[in-house]
C-alpha cells in the first residue's frame, strides 16, 4: 500500500502516545490487584482513584458517580438494564430513538423479553429526535428515556439537554421517577460532557473512541439513580460493577479523556476544517452524491454521503486498495447485508442507502490527505458506476 490514510475515527482511534506511556507501568510492574492490602495493590488502587477523579472532572460530577466498564456496549447495556430492572415495580416502558447504536437498541429489545415495552421514536430528515415526540411518548408506565448524544453514522448531535429537561418536567407532573440516559460514545472528548448541563442521570463513554485503549469505558451514574448492578461478584466499583479492575485501561481512560478535554477546541477546529473540505469537495466533484445528516449540527469529524447507483462495500474496497480506510456506517454493521437503520430512519431509500460512505477524520489527518481522497474518489465512483446494473439499465 502506497498511502495509509485513516478516515474511520468514529470506529476507533489509535492510542495517544502519552496515554500508552501512562498505561505501561500497570502491565508488568505495578500490576497489583487493587483490592489487596499491600503496597503493590494500593498503588493500583490509587491509580484507579486518580483516573476516576480525572473523568469526574471532565463530566463535572463526583468521582464516586463514575463506574468503569469494559466499553460503550457494556455501559449502554448496564445503564438500560440497571435502571429498568430497578424501576420494574413502577413501570415497564422505555423510550428510545430509531437511530440509536445497536448497543442501545438491542439492550432495549432485551428488556422486551422481561415484559417491557419500547417506543422507538422517529427522527426528522437530519436525524434529530423531536423534544415534543419524547414528551408525547411518556406515559405513566415510563421508567427510562435513552437517547444518544451524537449519532455514530451521520454525526447528528441530539438536543439532549432539552430532552432531559422535558422528561424531568413530565416526570414531575406525573410524580414518577424517569431515568434519562444518553449514549455519549460518539461525543466523548469532543462535546461538552457536563452532566448537569446535559441534565442526564446516566451517560456512556467508550475509551477507544478518544485515543485510549479498547475494552474499557465509563458509565456515569448520578447519585440516587435507581440502579440494579448487572455484573455482580466481588465488591469492585462500590458493588455496581464487579470484576478485577483493568488498571491499565482505567489509567488510560483518565489520561485520554483528560487530554481530549484539554485540547477539545483546537481538535474540533482541526477536524471541522477537514470535514468541511471533504463535504465541499465531494458535493462539487461528484454527481448523485447526497450528504446525510445536518450540514453543521453534526460532529466535527463526521462526513457521510450516499452515492447513487453504488454499493458501499465496493467503494470501501476501492478506497482501501488506494490506501484509504473508511466505513460504510457503523463499524459493526459493515459487512451486514441490510441497509443502515439510521439511513432508513432519516428517509433514505433502500437502494441509495446501500451506497453510503462514512469518512471520519482525526488527529493525524491533513489537508493533503483530504485532497488525495478528493482526487481519487471521483474516479472510483465513475468506474463502479460504469459497471453498475442500476446505473446502466434501470
Amino acid at each position, binding site marked *: 500500500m502506497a498511502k495509509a490514510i485513516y478516515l474511520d475515527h468514529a470506529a476507533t482511534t489509535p492510542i495517544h502516545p502519552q496515554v500508552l506511556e501512562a498505561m505501561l507501568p500497570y502491565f508488568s510492574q505495578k500490576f497489583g490487584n487493587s483490592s489487596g492490602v499491600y503496597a503493590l495493590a494500593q498503588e493500583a488502587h490509587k491509580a484507579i482513584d486518580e483516573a476516576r477523579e480525572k473523568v469526574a472532572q471532565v463530566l463535572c460530577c463526583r468521582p464516586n458517580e463514575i463506574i468503569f466498564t469494559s466499553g460503550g456496549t457494556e455501559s449502554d447495556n448496564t445503564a438500560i438494564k440497571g435502571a429498568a430492572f430497578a424501576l420494574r415495580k413502577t413501570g415497564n416502558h422505555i423510550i428510545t430513538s430509531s437511530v440509536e447504536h445497536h448497543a442501545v437498541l438491542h439492550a432495549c429489545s432485551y428488556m422486551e423479553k422481561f415484559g417491557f415495552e419500547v417506543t422507538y421514536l422517529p427522527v426528522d430528515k437530519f436525524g434529530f429526535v423531536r423534544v415534543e415526540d419524547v414528551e408525547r411518548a411518556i406515559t405513566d408506565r415510563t421508567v427510562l428515556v435513552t437517547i444518544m448524544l451524537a449519532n455514530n453514522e451521520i454525526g447528528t448531535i441530539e438536543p439532549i439537554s432539552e430532552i432531559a429537561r422535558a422528561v424531568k418536567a413530565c416526570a414531575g407532573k406525573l410524580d414518577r421517577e424517569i431515568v434519562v440516559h444518553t449514549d455519549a460514545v460518539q461525543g466523548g472528548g469532543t462535546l461538552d460532557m457536563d452532566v448537569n448541563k446535559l441534565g442526564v442521570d446516566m451517560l456512556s463513554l467508550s475509551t477507544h473512541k478518544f485515543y485510549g485503549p479498547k475494552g474499557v469505558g465509563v458509565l456515569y451514574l448520578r447519585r440516587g439513580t435507581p440502579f440494579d448492578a448487572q455484573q455482580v461478584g466481588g465488591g469492585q466499583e462500590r458493588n455496581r460493577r464487579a470484576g478485577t479492575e483493568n488498571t491499565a485501561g482505567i489509567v488510560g481512560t483518565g489520561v485520554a479523556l483528560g487530554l481530549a478535554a484539554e485540547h477539545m477546541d483546537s481538535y474540533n477546529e482541526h477536524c471541522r476544517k477537514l470535514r468541511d473540505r471533504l463535504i465541499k469537495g465531494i458535493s462539487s466533484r461528484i454527481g448523485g452524491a447526497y450528504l446525510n445528516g445536518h450540514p453543521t449540527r453534526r460532529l466535527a469529524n463526521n462526513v457521510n454521503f450516499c452515492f447513487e*447507483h*453504488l*454499493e*458501499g*462495500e*465496493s467503494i470501501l*474496497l*476501492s478506497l482501501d*486498495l488506494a490506501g484509504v480506510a473508511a466505513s460504510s456506517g457503523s463499524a459493526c454493521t459493515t*459487512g451486514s*447485508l441490510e*441497509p443502515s437503520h439510521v439511513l432508513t430512519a432519516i428517509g433514505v431509500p*433502500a*437502494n441509495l442507502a*446501500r451506497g453510503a460512505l462514512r469518512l471520519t477524520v482525526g488527529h493525524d489527518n491533513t489537508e493533503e490527505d483530504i485532497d488525495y481522497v478528493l482526487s481519487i474518489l471521483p474516479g472510483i465512483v465513475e468506474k463502479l458506476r*460504469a*459497471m*453498475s*446494473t*442500476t*446505473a*446502466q*439499465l*434501470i
Partner: protein
Amino acid sequence: MYSEKVIDHFMNPRNVGQMEDADGIGIEGNPACGDIMKMFIKVKDGMITDAKFLTFGCGSAIATSSMATEMIKGKPVDEARKLTNRQIAEALGGLPPVKMHCSVLAADALKSALEDYERKKAAKTTSAGV
C-alpha cells in the same frame, strides 16, 4: 478478508459492460442483499464466444461476475451449464463465508442467460419451422 484473485477481479474486472447483440441475457437480484447482476452471452455453433456483465453490489459480487464470465468464454454451452457457484468461488481462491451468496448470484445470472439463450433459440427454430 479477500483473496488476491478476488481483489484482482474486483480492481480489473474482465468483460464489464453491455452487449448490444447478445444471444442470451440473464438478470438476477438477491432480495436479501439487494445485489443485482446482469449477464450477456454470445453463442456461435454451441460455443460461448463472448460474455459480459454489469453488477450493482459489493466487491465479491463484482469479482464473481467477472470470474464467471471468464470461465465460460470459449466453452461449449453444455459445459457452461454445469458451472457451479462453488467452482466460481474456488477459481477466485475462495470467498469469505458471508460472501458465498455472491457466487450463487453469479451462477444464477449465468444460468438465466443460458436459459434465455435456449428460449430464444427454440423460438427462432419454431418460427423458422413455420
